[in-house]
C-alpha cells in the first residue's frame, strides 16, 4: 500500500485536515503529527521535499501558507506523490477557486469527499479532475 496518511497543516503547524489509511491511536497520531510538522516546517525551499521519519517517508509540498504532507511507505515513488499532491491542489482549486486554508477549514467535509474520490485505502482511485469532482457537483446541484 502506498499512501499511509495525508495531512494538511498551516504554517503555524495546526492540522487542518488529517486522513489516515492505517490505524493509529489518538495519542500516536498527535505525537506523529507533531514530530512530522516540526521536521518538515523547519526545512527550507532548496531542500528536497522528502523527509524520512520513523518508518515513513514524508513527501511534502508547500502552497502559500498551507503544507500538504503525505506519508508513504518505502515502495512508493516519491516523485509521483509530489505530482499527486499537485493534482489534489488543482482539484481543490477547480472547486473552491484558488483554495486556501479557510476553504478547507470551513468545508472540511468537501475536502474529505474529494480525497475519498482520489484515494482509497492508500491507493489512487482516479486522476481525472472532472471525474473526481462529478459526484460533489451533483450533490451541490441537488441541494
Amino acid at each position, binding site marked *: 500500500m502506498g499512501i499511509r496518511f495525508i495531512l494538511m497543516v498551516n504554517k503555524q503547524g495546526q492540522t487542518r485536515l488529517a486522513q489516515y489509511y492505517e490505524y493509529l491511536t489518538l495519542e500516536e497520531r498527535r505525537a506523529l503529527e507533531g514530530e512530522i510538522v516540526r521536521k518538515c516546517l523547519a526545512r527550507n525551499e532548496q531542500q528536497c521535499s522528502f523527509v524520512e521519519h520513523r518508518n515513513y517517508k514524508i513527501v511534502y509540498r508547500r502552497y502559500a501558507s498551507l503544507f500538504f504532507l503525505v506519508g508513504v511507505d518505502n515502495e512508493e515513488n516519491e516523485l*509521483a506523490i509530489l505530482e499527486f499532491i499537485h493534482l489534489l491542489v488543482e482539484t481543490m482549486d477547480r472547486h473552491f477557486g484558488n483554495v486556501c486554508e479557510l476553504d478547507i477549514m470551513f468545508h472540511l*467535509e468537501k475536502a474529505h469527499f474529494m480525497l475519498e474520490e482520489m484515494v482509497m485505502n492508500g491507493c489512487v482511485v482516479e486522476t481525472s479532475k472532472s471525474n473526481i469532482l462529478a459526484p460533489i457537483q451533483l450533490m451541490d446541484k441537488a441541494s
Partner: protein
Amino acid sequence: MALHSVNLNELFTYCWDMIRAIRACKTAAEERAVVRKECAAIRAAINENDQDYRHRNLAKLMFIHMLGYPTHFGQMECLKLIASAGFPEKRIGYLGLMLLLDERQEVLMLVTNSLKQDLNHSNQYIVGLALCALGNICSAEMARDLAPEVERLLQFRDPNIRKKAALCSIRIIRKVPDLAENFINPTASLLKEKHHGVLITGVQLCTDLCKVSEEALEYFRKKSTDGLVKTLRDLVNSPYAPEYDIAGITDPFLHIRLLKLLRVLGQGDADASDSMNDILAQVATKTESNKNAGNAILYACVETIMSIEDNGGLRVLAINILGRFLSNRDNNIRYVALNMLMKAITVDAQAVQRHRATILECVKDSDASIRKRALELVYLLVNESNVKPLTKELIDYLEVSDQEFKGDLTAKICSIVSKLSPEKIWYIDQMLKVLSEAGNFVKDEVWHALIVVISNASDLHGYTVRALYRALQTSAEQECLVRVAVWCIGEYGDLLVNSVGMLDIEDPVTVTESDAVDIVEIAIRRDTLDLTTKAMAFIALLKLSSRFPSCSERIKDIVSQYRGSLVLELQQRSIEFNSIILKHQNIRSALVERMPVLDEATFIGKRAGAMPTSVSTPSAASINLPNGIAKPSAVPLVDLLDLSSDDAPAPSSSGGDFLQDLLGVDLLPSSNQSGINPVPQNGTDVLLDLLSIGTPPAQSSPSTPDILSSSQDNKTPVSPLEGLLSPPSQPKQAASAGAAPVVDFLDGFAANPPKPEDNGSAYPSIVAFESSALKMEFNFSKPPGNPQTTLIQATFTNLSSNNYSDFVFQAAVPKFLQLHLDPASSNTLPASGNGVVTQNLKVTNSQHGKKSIVMRVRIAYKMNNKDVLEEGQINNFPRGL
C-alpha cells in the same frame, strides 16, 4: 423523521460558529475549553437522541477529532446516520465512520449489515459510498462476509463503481489472502478496460494479487503481460488528452502503476522480461525529463529495469539515467537517484562505484534527507580497497557536520572501521579520531570493542595510551574518549610515563607520573561526565596508586574526598578503595595488576548473545537496598578483585562476564551468564558474598574462591571469621549495615586470611566411573592463582567380594588438556569396600572457560589371578574446570 433533505452544503455552516471560536483561540488552553464545551453539548444532544442535529454534531465531531481530541462517544451516531434512508445522512455517516472509527472497534460488527444493504442499493452513489467505506476500514470478518458483493460489483455497469470495487478488493485480499483466487478472473477483465480510473485501480489490484498469490502471479504473467505492454505503449503514444495531461504526458500515474506491475511480472521470469524490453527502452529514452512528472516515470522505469531479468543494454540506459539524476541540481531528483542507486548496487556495484565521488559530496550536503541517503549508500560502497580514503573523508567531515547528523555518521564510520580495518594500528588511530570528534555519540559496544582490540595489541599499548593522553588534552568533554583513555591510563600508565614501545611515527611526549594522575583526576572532577566514566576513573586511580608509588598519597587524598559523595556508587568506591590503599598494601599490587589480555572471540560471542539474554532476565538486574536506592547488580568489589593478575582466579579469564570485570562497573542491567560466578544471578549483593566467607566451607558460595585466592600470599591457615560475620541466613541485615562490614571484612581479610584449601568445596565431587565391581570418585580442588589447573583426587572402591591386585589406573585426555598422574596409594584394593586406593591427578585446561574437561579411563587389575580391564569415558566433570 427528519428526512426532509439535509442540505450538505449547509451542513458545515452550522459548525462555522464552533470553527470560528476555535480559530480565535490564542492558546491551547482556550482551545481545550471551547472543545470541552462543544463536546458537552454534543453529548447532551446524543443523550436526547436528537435526530435533527445528529449530522451537524457529527460534522463538529470530525473537526474536533482532527484536532486530536477523543470523540468515541460519537461513534454510534455514525451508525445511526448510515442506517438512515437519505443520501446526505449516509454521506456524512460514512465519512464519520471512516474518520472516527477503525477496524479494531467492535462497533464495526454492527455496521456490516448496513454495508451489505448499501452495497446492494439501487442508487449507485450509495453503493459507491459503501464501497469506499469498506475499502478503508474493512476487517477480516467483514472481508469474508462481504467479498461476494464486492466481487459482483467488479462487473457493475458504471466504471466509477468498478474502480472502487477494485480497490475494495485489494483490502479484502490483504485481510484474507485465501480469497485471492476468486478475484483473478474479474481482475483480468479490468486490465482490458479503457477507463483510466478502472485501469489504474485494476492494475493496482493485479499487483497486489501477484504479491499474495503465486498462482495469480503465474496467471497474469502468462495471460496479461503482453496486454499490459500494449496498454503502456498506447498510453505512451496517446494523443493529447486534456483530462489526464500533466506536463505533456498522459496520466503519469497510470504510467507508474503499469511500470510497477510490469516489474512484478518480469522479476524472475526471462520471457516476461523479454517481452517488455522494447517498451521499457522506449519509455527510458523518449520520456521528457525536464518536468517532475517525466522524472517520476523515468524513476519508475529505472526501478523496473533494475528489477527484471538482465538485459545489458537496458541496464546501461538505466544507470545513465541515474547518473543524470545524480548530477541534477534539483534536490528531489538527487534524492531519488541516491535512493535508486541503493537498489542498483546489488545489480551492478561497479557502475555505482563510478559515482562514488559525487555520492561522497552528497554526504556533505546541507539537506539532511540527502545526507542520510548518501551515507547509507557510501556505507554499501566501502570495500577493502577503498576503505582508507573513504574513512578519511568521512572522519574529516565528522569535524564539521551538524550535531544531529553526528550520531548516524559516527555509527556508520565505526561500523566501517571495525568491519574492514586492514590493520590494528589503523583501527586504533581511526577510532581515536572518532572518539575525539564525536565521543559522545559512540555506542557502548563500540568502545568496548576498542578496548578489547587495544588489550590484544600488546605492541601498541604504549602508543595507544600516549595517543589517548594527547587526545584527552584537547577533547576532554567526549565521554567515550575519556572512558577509553582512563581505562588505558590505569592499565598502561607505566608505559605512558616511560615512553615504552615508542613508534617511529610518534612525536615524543614527556609525561610525568603526576601528569597522568592529573588527567584522571580531571575526569573525576568534571561535572558533565557521567557516573560510569567517573567510576572507571576511580579504578584507574587505584591502579595508578600501585603503579606510581610516589603519587600514592595524592591519590589517596583524591579518593577519600568522595567518602561523603551523595552518589552511592562513588561513595562506595571511595570507601573501599581508600581502605585498600590504606590498610591493604600487601594485597594491593596483586589486586591492581594489569588485566589479562581480553579474549576477542568471547567478546564477539558475548555481544551476539547479549541481547536476548539481557531481555530474558531483566528482573535479575537490580535489587533494592533497604535505603530505597536501586543497587545495580554490578558488583564493584568482586570486579575489583577480578581485576587481578594474569594468573588470577577463574572469573577474570572465564570470559563469561569479562566486560563487567574489565570495566569494573556496569551500571546497566545485564545478566550474568557465567556459571562460575553466579552471585549477581541470585540477585544478591556483593557484600553478601564477602560475608559468606565467614560460613563453613560446605555452605560457602561458589564465588568464594574468587576472593580467597587473591590472598594467596598468606598461607597461614586460620579459622574463618565466624564470630565476626553474620551467616548468610540474614544477608539483608548484613548488607544494610552499609560499608562498615566491608571494612571489617577487609581488616580480617588481611590479618587472618582463610586457608586456600577451602577451595575444594567449590566443586562438587562426582562419581566418575562405576561398574558392578568398581567405583571411582573424583574430588576437585583448584590451586590458588591458577584457574586453568585442577587437582583431582581419585578414590577407588572395590564393590565386589574379591580382593584386587596389580591395580593400575590409566587416563587419557584430548590435546587441549594436560594430564599428570601421581602414583597410586597402593596397587591392591581390598574387597567389599574395606579400604580404598587414592591417586592424585593434575589436569591443566588450556581452553579454560571455553571447554570442559573430558577424560577416558582404563582400569586394569587382577581378580582371582584373572586380568580384568574396565574402560570408560568421563563427561560429567563440573562445568568451569
